[in-house]
Every structure is written in C-alpha cells, then in structure tokens.
C-alpha cells in the first residue's frame, strides 16, 4: 500500500496542488480511501490529515468508506431534481433495499448521491461505476441493475 501511494505521488511532483488528482488515482488503485491510506497521503504530501480528509469527504466521487463492488450514484443537482431524480432515488432504494451511503448485504451495490454529471440533457441521470445512464424510468432502472 505504502509503495503504491509513494509511486503515485512521485508522478505528480511537478504539480502545485496535486491532492485531488492523487486521491483519485489512489482510490483507483486501492479501492477506497481508508484512514490508513489518507494518513500515508498526508504524510508524503506533508499536509495536515484534517485537510486531506476534508477534501476527500467533500468530493462525492471519492470514497472514505469501503464500498460495494458497484457504486450507483444518483444525480441530485437541480435539472435532474426537476425531472424526477427523487423518484429515481426512491425506486433505487426499494429495489436495492438500502439507504443513501449504505451497501447491500451481498456487497454488490452501494448507493450514493452526486452533483451534476454533465448530462443534464438526458435528466434524470445516474452513474454506475463510470458508466452514465440518462432518461431514466423505473423499467430502465431494473434493466440497468440486472447488468451488474
């Protein structure tokens, strides 16, 4: 773990404020940003841990807790909201049997909120891992979940 983090950080040495990019890379490699991981990042970047955690917990695409194999993120920004993202959310909650921030028992899905995914044209939208789905309906949701 330490070696992975060190290697990633070295790659960003020329950047002035590399924290966010580094956290993304580290998460890609190590799955999620645990306390242990963030402590190492703080140490090698010589930043206070409070700041590193503050940044990690600010961005919805960064996870500070262990997550299921697939992460379902529901867009909560205004355009999607207007087009019914809250119905999508209710649907997903009952489909998966979990609340926001939780993970299903079989560890298959975690449910999260996110801000605008940049595809407002096809609102309401969700993202599963790095795949975006738009124009959602209850039926479509079911089909999407089945793929995973």
């Amino acid at each position: 773990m330490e070696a992975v983090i060190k290697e990633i950080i070295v790659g960003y040495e020329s950047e002035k404020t590399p924290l966010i990019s580094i956290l993304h890379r580290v998460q890609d490699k190590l799955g999620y940003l645990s306390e242990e991981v963030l402590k190492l990042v703080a140490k090698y970047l010589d930043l206070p841990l409070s700041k590193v955690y503050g940044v990690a917990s600010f961005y919805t695409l960064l996870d500070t807790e262990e997550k299921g194999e697939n992460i379902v993120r529901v867009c909560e920004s205004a355009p999607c909201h207007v087009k019914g993202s809250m119905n999508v959310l209710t649907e997903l909650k009952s489909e998966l049997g979990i609340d926001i921030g939780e993970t299903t028992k079989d560890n298959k899905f975690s449910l999260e909120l996110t801000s605008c995914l940049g595809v407002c044209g096809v609102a309401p939208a969700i993202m599963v891992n790095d795949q975006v789905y738009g124009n959602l309906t209850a039926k479509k949701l079911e089909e999407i979940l089945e793929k995973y």
Partner: protein
Amino acid sequence: MKVKINGEELEATAGQTVLEVAKKAGIEIPTLCYLKDKNEIGVCRICMVKVEGGGGGYEPAFVLQVSDGLEIETNTPEVRELRRLNLELILANHPQDCLSCERSLNCELQGLSKELGVDGSRFAGKRIEHQLDESTPSLIRDPNKCVKCRRCVSVCNDSQGVKVLFPNNRGFETLIAPFFNKDLDEVACSLCGQCLHACPVAAIKENDAIDNVWEALNDDNQHVVVQIAPAVRVSIGEEFGVEPGTPMTNKLVTACRKLGFDKVFDTDFTADLTIMEEGHELLSRLKEGGPFPLLTSCSPGWIKYVEHFHNDFLPNLSSCKSPQQMFGALAKSYYADIENLSREEITVVSVMPCTAKKFEATREEMMKDGSQDVDLVLTTRELARMLKMTGVDFLNLSGSDFDDPLGISTGAADIFGVTGGVMEAALRTVYEKLTGEELSGLRLTEAKGLTGVREAKIELSNQTIKVAVVSGLGNASKVLEAVKRGEKEYHFIEAMACPGGCVGGGGQPIPTNEEIVMKRGQGLYNINNSKSLRKSHENPVIQELYEEYLEGVGNKKAHQLLHTTYQKRAK
C-alpha cells in the same frame, strides 16, 4: 481617493476594504464569519452592502476593496432585508434554545438577530442530529449549534498551527470536525480552547465541572480548598461589567469563601515555587552543558502539543510540574499534614484561565495512589457562573486576603499569567543567584526572521545566555523548527499555548481578543509593581517550606513532589 458611503464622502486608501473605511467613519456593518486577519473567506453573507451605479449589485463588505468614486449603501431597506434573509437561513438550521444555552447574552448569533430585527425564521430547515463530542475533560463540541463560519478552523490551523479542525463533507452535510469526524481525544488537539474563543455560538464550550464542585462543597466529610491562578484575578471582573485588567484579587477571595470553600489559596504561591525549581534546573543545565534549550512546562496546552508534534524535544522540557499541579501535590501532603487530614479527606479545586488545565489534572503522571492531586478544575467563566447562581454581589463585596500558608506570594508569580512573565520571574532569581545583583527588567526584542517571537541576551557572571519568549502554538512551533534547523540557539525558551499567555487562555471570559488580552496582561504587571516582594526566592513561606518540608531546593523530596515526566503521543 474618495468614496461615498451612505452619501457621506470619505477619504480612503487603495487596498482598504469597505468594512474598514466604514468602521473608521463610525458606520457599523454587521459580520459573523469574519475574523480580522484570520478568517476571511466570506461564507455567511451577513456583511452585504449595496454597490451603486456601474455593475452594481451586493457584495460582502470585508471583501470589497475601495476604488476611486465607489458609492456604497450599507443601510437601505433592501440591504437590511438581504442580511435578515441570510441570517434567517442560518437560523433555520439552528436549535434556538437560547434559554438554556451557556452562550446566551454573549452569543453573536443572538446579538445579530436582535441587531437585524429578526422576528422568527421564515424557514424551518431539515436538520441532522449530531452527537456531542464530550470525549475530553476540557471541551465539548456541539455540531448542532455550529453555523459553519469556520472561524475555529482558521484559528486552529493558522494561529495555533495544530490543524485538527476542518470542514468535512459538503453542502448541507458539512461538519466542522477532526478527520473522519473523530472526537477530540482521538486526534492531536492541544485542548488550548482557542477555537472556543473563535466560535460565535455555543458549538464549542468548556466541559463544565460546576455540579461536581457543588457536590464537594456540600459534602460535610470533605475539606475543600481552592487555588486561584494569576490570570483569573484580572479578568473575572469582566463577567460583572468591569474593565479588563482591573485587579479583583481580594473580592475574589471573599467571593470564594462565600461559596463555601474551607480555604482560599493562591496558585501564585506555587508559581513562586516553580521559579525556585525551574531556576535550579536552568542553573544545573548551565553547569552541565545542556540539554538546551530548556523549555518551560507550565502551560499544559503547550506540553500536549510538544508531546504530539515535537516529541524529539521531550528531554528539553523542564521536568517541573505546572504551578496548578505543584499546588495539588503540596495541598495533599504538606498542607494535609499541617491540618492532620488524610489525602482522601481533601478536595482540591482550581480556578484557571484555561481549558487544557482540566485535562492536565487528569493526566496519569499527576495521580498518586490512583487519585488526582487536583480534583476539579473550573474556568474563570465557570466560577463567575457559580457566583451568579448564588447571588453573590461580587462588585460590592469587601475584600479579604488569601489564607495561610499557601497564599503568600511575590510579584514574580503574578506575571506568570502573561507572555514573558515566567521568563522574567525566572531570570530575576537566577540572575541574582549568579551575579549577586538585581536584574533591572528584561528587555525583549523581536527575533530576526521570526515574527511573534521575542528574544534577549543576558550577561551572567562568566557567560551570556540567550532566551526566547513565545506565545501561541503556531509561533512556538516556528521557534522549535528554527532551533532544529540550527538557525537559532537558545538556552531557555518560555512558551505558552495561548496568544498573549494565560490572560488569553481558553477559559477566560468571552470575548477574549488581542486588545482585551493586552489589558489583562498590563493588569498583572500592575499587581507586580504594587507588591514589595517581587522575587520568588524572597517569599518567606517558600523559604520555610524548603527548610521544614522539602529538604532544600532540587532535593529528592522536592523532586518527588514537584517534578514529572512526559509521554510521546501520535501526531
């Protein structure tokens, strides 16, 4: 350049903000998140003013810089409505239980509501119920009351350099807390309480010991003694409307008797004793050649900070207990013997300007046979609250003197409560020991390249010693780093966790700010000047204590009772 505020033409210079120019002209603009030179991010939108003409619009007054011909309105109905709206949005997420809140009457949110004429919030916001952080004996964090102004964040990060508080999560879920929303006892917090002074509301407050003190006072089987720290006597008056820095010593003694304490003693006494022991330590390090710099150990916030962040300096810390703990140790040995009481029959209460002292009293190093030397610690604020509860008419009390024997002190002890005071007190004694002459004042000058650090050179019989004085943990860290890098060399450094020393401590009356801290410090120097004895070694009771009980300065018995050890803690 010329600017117009509310139609009044005013002179301004480039770089000034509208807030500054207005203030100078006697025009008040309300603020909440703004803390001069510390927190300048503008999250609360309370200080909005209207820019006339041109692009126009509303801007926060402390951000907006003046430009020639700028026209500002600070007081139109629209501006007032906008501020009120912003405040009501904050109030929508606030518990609003002012009746039972400790900050009632000195809460800035409450003050603003009055000032802006808020009559109830139009919005009922969703609220997240947060657990209180009651993990330390010093502080309680109540995130339910937090208005997310981030003033504590800037103070903990920048002035104190401890960096344990930060905004976590985002938007509605934002929580100002340590990493992973941990409690303060799980992180490297010094418990200095400076975040409490930064906080406009009751989201950070002391862990109150009042009930426990009443219980002890009502227990007929307990002999309850109280010690009062130097910095308390020049600040307690503020709780009753008196100017900061006004000495209230004798009324304070009477007031404590009225509360029912069996004996009212003075932490000044053990401050004198600290000087004797620490002076001796400096002399023997000078003889043995180190380790230098010797670091003072009377500020528990500073000690905890060194244990977390600079533990390679642990051997440099003076092994002397703080005056509070020397008092506790003596009260339960020397004094207990005089009164023919056992350790269990005495309760030692302290009144301190400090939140870290509450923690210090519970340190395992400060225990004997499984019980604490100092049982309960009240802050200046808590003592004032107790007095108000009992209806003691503080300002009209007639004064009285501290009890014997732990109540006699010199001026050297009074200045312990202000930055530079411990150094001056120690040098008065050490200088005289080595040169046979009296030290004529200590002239400190700003250290080159280290703002916030003052230093001096003192010629002793056959050597020159270099000393430094620093307050505020951010500044203290700078000196240690400079020493580590070999850029600075000192024999002796006085460090206090709180800016200005204990007069600015986390347990002092609200508000505590630079100006008030200065006045309190001056008050302590005035007390020093009014005393005939100003050198700790001239304290007659201290001399007696050494002869009759401690078997001489720096002796084994003295060492057992008055010295301590430190521990490494995680960063």
